[in-house]
């Protein structure tokens, strides 16, 4: 009996609760407004439906949120992910124009570019001690420029069936992109929890000094998370490019970094770092995509969708802040007779 209540209470206090509730509310809203929301139909062995669309369109955001979670867990932030997406897409598009290059090599090159960018970020933050906002801001600006340089400033159309499979194909009836992303989440979770990497990242975010004094190579941990983020961003860039069959260096990844930060924070990882929840980031990104789709279905023009996002960010910040919680408690207790 005691065991059951302790795991039940752990659920009640789990930070995953709020984003799950938020998601449930949104889904309920959608079902009420659009009864066909949850319907999934099978055509030609492929699954179709609004929920499938959400998973498909949200795949990039979920992937960015994966890398961003690790960065935020160390107390940092990565503003350059959108630009890294653009760089990876541009590299792939340009290389695919060569007639005899095989696909794995192209993908490797694009991912390599992302890793390089991540390494640059990591070096600036960990070795040179530059603030993460500034360091990744520099990469963001430079990266955008680099991607335009690589693609020659044009939008490059891609005509490669195997490459297009990434963004448009189906595997076991489901779209490839979300499957790939979910697989990456599983692999990441395994790697982080089976090795001590997850513990080290949380330690650095929770108390970096204590980590150093306990013999941890804290600077190295701080730097490597940016490499991971660059990796995720590169793959996300490949998914995006493959999906539209073009590398658009101007538009790819626009504002994606902010959405990724949003997903991580809503998912229960504090912006100050420490304990992180990969699952939470996934749900946060899913929530965000559902919100966007809901807005669209309700008739709100997509550019207006940020308004509810703003309110959610505000709510999350207030909930996470000690000062705000105390103030609200004070208000409530004062108004009681």
């Amino acid at each position, binding site marked *: 009996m005691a065991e059951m209540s302790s795991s039940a209470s752990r659920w009640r206090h789990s930070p995953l609760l709020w984003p799950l509730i938020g998601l449930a509310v949104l889904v309920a809203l959608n079902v009420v407004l659009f009864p066909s929301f949850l319907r999934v139909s099978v055509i030609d062995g492929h699954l179709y439906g609004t929920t499938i669309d959400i998973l498909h369109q949200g795949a990039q955001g979920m992937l960015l949120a994966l890398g961003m979670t690790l960065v935020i867990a160390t107390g940092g932030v990565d503003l350059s992910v959108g630009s890294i997406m653009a760089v990876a897409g541009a590299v792939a598009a340009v290389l695919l124009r060569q007639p005899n290059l095989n696909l794995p090599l192209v993908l490797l090159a694009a991912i390599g570019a992302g890793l390089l960018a991540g390494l640059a970020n990591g070096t600036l933050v960990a070795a040179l001690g530059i603030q993460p906002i500034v360091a990744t801001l520099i990469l963001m600006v430079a990266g955008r420029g680099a991607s335009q340089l690589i693609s020659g400033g044009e939008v490059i159309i891609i005509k490669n069936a195997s490459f297009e499979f990434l963004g448009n194909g189906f595997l076991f009836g489901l779209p490839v992109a979300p499957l790939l992303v979910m697989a990456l989440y599983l692999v990441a979770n395994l790697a982080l929890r*089976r*090795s*001590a*990497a997850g*513990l*080290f990242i*949380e*330690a650095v975010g*929770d*108390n970096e*000094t*204590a*980590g*150093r*004094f*306990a*013999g*941890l*190579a804290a600077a190295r941990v701080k730097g490597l998370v940016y490499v991971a983020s660059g990796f995720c961003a590169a793959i996300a860039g490949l998914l995006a490019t493959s999906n539209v069959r073009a590398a658009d260096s101007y538009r790819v990844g626009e504002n994606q970094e902010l959405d990724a930060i949003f997903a991580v924070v809503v998912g229960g990882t504090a912006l100050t770092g*420490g*304990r992180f929840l990969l699952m939470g980031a996934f749900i946060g990104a899913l929530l965000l995509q559902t919100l966007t789709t809901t807005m669209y279905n309700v008739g709100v023009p997509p550019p207006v969708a940020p308004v509810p996002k703003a309110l959610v960010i505000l709510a999350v910040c207030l909930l996470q802040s000690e000062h705000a919680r105390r103030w609200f408690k004070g208000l409530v207790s004062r108004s009681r007779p």
Partner: protein
Amino acid sequence: MDQSAPLLQLRGMGKSFPGAVALSGVDFSVRAGEIHALLGENGAGKSTLIKVLTGVYTADEGEARLAGQVIRPSSPKEAEALGISTVYQEVNLIPALSVAENIALGRQPGRFGFLNWRAIRRHAQAALARLDVRCDVDAELGSLSVALQQMVAIARALDLKAKLLVLDEPTASLDEKEVEELFTVMKRLRAEGLGIVFVTHFLDQVYAVTDRLTILRNGTLVGEYATAELPRLTLVSKMLGREVQDVSGRTTAVQPPPSGEAPVLETRGLGRRGAIQSIDLALRKGEVTGLGGLLGSGRTETARLLFGIDKPDTGEIRVKGRPVVVRSPRDAVKLGLAFSSEDRKSEGIFPNLSVRENLIFALQAKRGAGRMLKHAEQMQLCTHYIAALRIKTADTETPIKNLSGGNQQKVLLARWLATQPEVIILDEPTRGIDIGAKAEIEQLIAKLRADGLAVLLISSEIEEVVRNSTRVVVLRERRQTAELNGAEIETQRLMHAMAGTHEKPHG
């Protein structure tokens, strides 16, 4: 010199925080035209008293009077307006702004909201001249030496028409010449009728410049004395709570080990500017070397040099006879060292991580990310140490911040013991721990000694050092001044060494 009513009179001051009483029934008075020292070891309540006086905290009980009027400042600004100005150890000014600006900040002369820079400069020059201090008022404050920055802070305080000047550990970062210059300024201000509160732990300085002194211990008042009438040893014993009479004969219970073995860790001439001068240590297997000294004598600084947290300016460290450079705690751990820090909150625990994660952390960091300790191994370690150190925790997954301070300390000790070090440095291992737990830790120290570890024990409690050490190195004001071996380790001698006095021959 006003002998009738004191300039400042605090009566029965009390201040509590959740879970701790910081001050209780403290009286404190300062006369105009006097330099008054405020003394006490860690946790005595000095900083709380100052914060209450200067409006950072509000007292829970007691009354404060300045020049006869009851005051109750609720903010530093209010305290300043009343005439109480403070110069903090970290010189709380703005390093990026100029000297002149810092003196004038918040009250710059100007018309219609526009600043009059010439007046600001002139004003600053006049304020510094009052202290007979020369410096470029346009210079950036941060580019000046700490001593000069303090002068600027004092100039600002005076500018605010201070009647009472509080100097909080002003000499901590000054060299001897700068200390003399500060004293000259203090004496000049005293002659002008200012009351000066001088918070310090340097006893030589107390005897050099103060008229009267007040001693606090554990949040209560021990007494107020005229400096000239209080012998040094009595002062130290009052600060530490030992009566001069009743400690004779308290000697160490530890037998000195067989000598002749090479030290596991030794230092020659190890030093760092502003922290510790030239220290020679030799830590041997199966020995507990106590590092004795008052607050500020350089004990923790020594530990930090040994463990690679700070870089030494002089001297060398040898591990098992080989000279080594310890560049970081990581290097130190690889060499077989362990360090349990005195500030567990900011340097020890990962507050939101579980007891288990905190406990296995150093061992895991040593192994690296790849070779993760299996869950079963982790639980084994936890069960072993929770039992061995009697750690009270609901379970291994509780966040460590929920444990009491004493139990947190035990988890940290377990963390280091799990790495099976050859040398372990314990900095204030029993601070904030109840009597029962203290005894357990001391038993643990004995067991470590028996197991062949070399232990460096830093403690402010004389008794603890005496009870547990086979050898004691004494530090005083950042210098190594004495070494006691075997039967020499007893409370009286140690206190003398710490105070810098000579023992009177028993008659």
